[in-house]
């Protein structure tokens, strides 16, 4: 590359390209914080397998707290949560995202097998699922405001926690479809798997959201505020946690596993 003109031109081109890239990214960073989003996708094979097992069989798992690294930044150290690759208890966004997409594609596939497919079904299923997630986040945020829970947990953490139920929903749809041979998701097998995955999901949320919703009562926390919550306050929070983990999840999971066509039409009986 001996030619100086071409070299200069290439250099100009490269710096123009870099400037454009930076402009694009600074605009992107106003809306979406890519660096923190990457934290949620920093997963590995073993993490995903263990996490799926944890969502479906949470009964025997022992420590549920997330590990923290201490990082020193500008003189003060604060805790930074470990990425999902290193910490099984950390919520990630890979599983919820893939579970959501699989749920949409799978329920559309089931509709195709029942010959009730129409292209709007993609949009319908996607909207239903997203509305469910949105409602859950809204309810948790409202409760955090009303019960004055001062927790600065990230929004994406809550989205991740509410996305784990799709794993159970997909399992319910799959197993009931196999067992009922296309007759919908009712019947013994369908309801049995549904109740089991609902219970597992409820237990998982109970244990995980404890750290989000309930105040940290250990004496050696290094959070700045030292507040004393009254006993009824704490009781109310625990009650909300329970209501959120069980009845609400029952409602939402039932919405997601509904058949779109009543089974009487499918089996031909009137």
């Amino acid at each position, binding site marked *: 590359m001996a030619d100086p*003109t*071409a070299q200069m031109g290439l250099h100009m*081109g490269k710096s123009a*390209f870099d400037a454009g890239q930076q402009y694009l990214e600074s605009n992107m960073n106003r809306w979406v914080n890519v660096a923190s989003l990457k934290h949620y996708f*920093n*997963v590995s094979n073993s993490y995903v397998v263990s996490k799926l097992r944890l969502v479906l069989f949470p009964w025997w798992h022992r420590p549920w707290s997330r590990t923290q690294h201490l990082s020193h930044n500008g003189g003060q150290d604060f805790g930074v949560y470990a990425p999902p690759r290193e910490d099984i208890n950390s919520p990630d966004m*890979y599983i919820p995202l893939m579970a959501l997409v699989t749920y949409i594609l799978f329920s559309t596939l089931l509709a195709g097998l029942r010959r009730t497919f129409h292209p709007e079904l993609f949009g319908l299923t996607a909207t239903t699922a997203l509305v469910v997630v949105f409602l859950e986040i809204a309810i948790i945020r409202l409760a955090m405001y009303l019960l004055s829970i001062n927790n600065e947990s990230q929004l994406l953490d809550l989205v991740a926690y509410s996305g784990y139920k799709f794993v159970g929903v997909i399992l319910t749809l799959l197993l009931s479809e196999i067992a009922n041979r296309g007759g919908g998701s009712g019947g013994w097998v369908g309801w049995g798997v549904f109740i089991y995955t609902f219970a597992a999901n409820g237990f998982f949320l109970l244990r995980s959201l404890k750290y989000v919703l309930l105040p940290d009562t250990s004496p050696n926390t290094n959070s700045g505020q030292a507040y004393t919550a009254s006993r009824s306050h704490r009781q109310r929070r625990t009650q909300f946690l329970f209501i959120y983990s069980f009845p609400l999840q029952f409602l939402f999971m039932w919405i997601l596993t509904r058949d779109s066509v009543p089974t009487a039409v499918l089996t031909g009986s009137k």
Partner: protein
Amino acid sequence: MAQYGYPPQQQATPNLQFYQSSYSQQPVSGHSTPFQAYNNAGASSSGYANTGFGGGFGAQPGVSGRMGDQGGLRTGWLAAFGTEGYDGEPPLLEELGVNFGHIKMKTLSVLNPLARMDQHIMDDADLAGPVLFFLLFGFFLLFSGKVHFGYIYGLGALGSLSLWGVFSLMAPPTVSDASSTQHEHPSNLLSTLTFGRSTSVLGYCILPLVFTSLVGIAVPMDTFFGYIITSLAISWCTYSSSAMFCAVGRMSQMRVLVAYPLALFYGLFGIMAIFSSRGSGVLEAKATAGHPI
């Protein structure tokens, strides 16, 4: 390499006007375009910029607006129908950046399931091969009776965009960004997995499905045999594309996670292939005969 003449006066302001070319006749070597030169030097990170700008500079010689004047075209009606151009002009394919050797190498690494993926295999991500494969897929489906070009474009565009988004989030930030300063944003979004490279990988790895659609012209795919062949093709596509993505994005221990959305993507194409082949009327007949609604 052709010499470009500089204007003799060099002002204080850096010359924003381009040179007046009065280049001498010199034969073109194999390293004429900057694109080729950079490729042979093995620069990986600037490959993206080079394809845009290197080719342009290679075409500059001789465009001085004065025909037949200096070192230019031969005149006369015989030369007008000939294919010679200016002296020292690189061949057309080289100028366009279509490198058949690279295309062949990438295709062979897709077809050979035992090959190890080189990390720099996608440094010159070209879209010529992928576009060819997608068009072949569409044409084979056309020959078997169904016109699905719209679905291929739509699914291809939407799928490749979302797959690029997910994989660039999953890929670790590049080493140069990690070592760069803390107080300025590392360029997380683009890293080593640019959209061009990602689309290129997706397009190359659809080759087994192209073969399946070729088979589907003659043999109906709705049968058990057809399902087996299509599933085999989908898993082959997924296997090779997950290997390529993990190599290009420098991802470690993530291969199964990368393979899952790719399996969904190629699975949708496979469904297109199954329900387009010659025997697809069989499914409809079975459906309407069994359940009168």
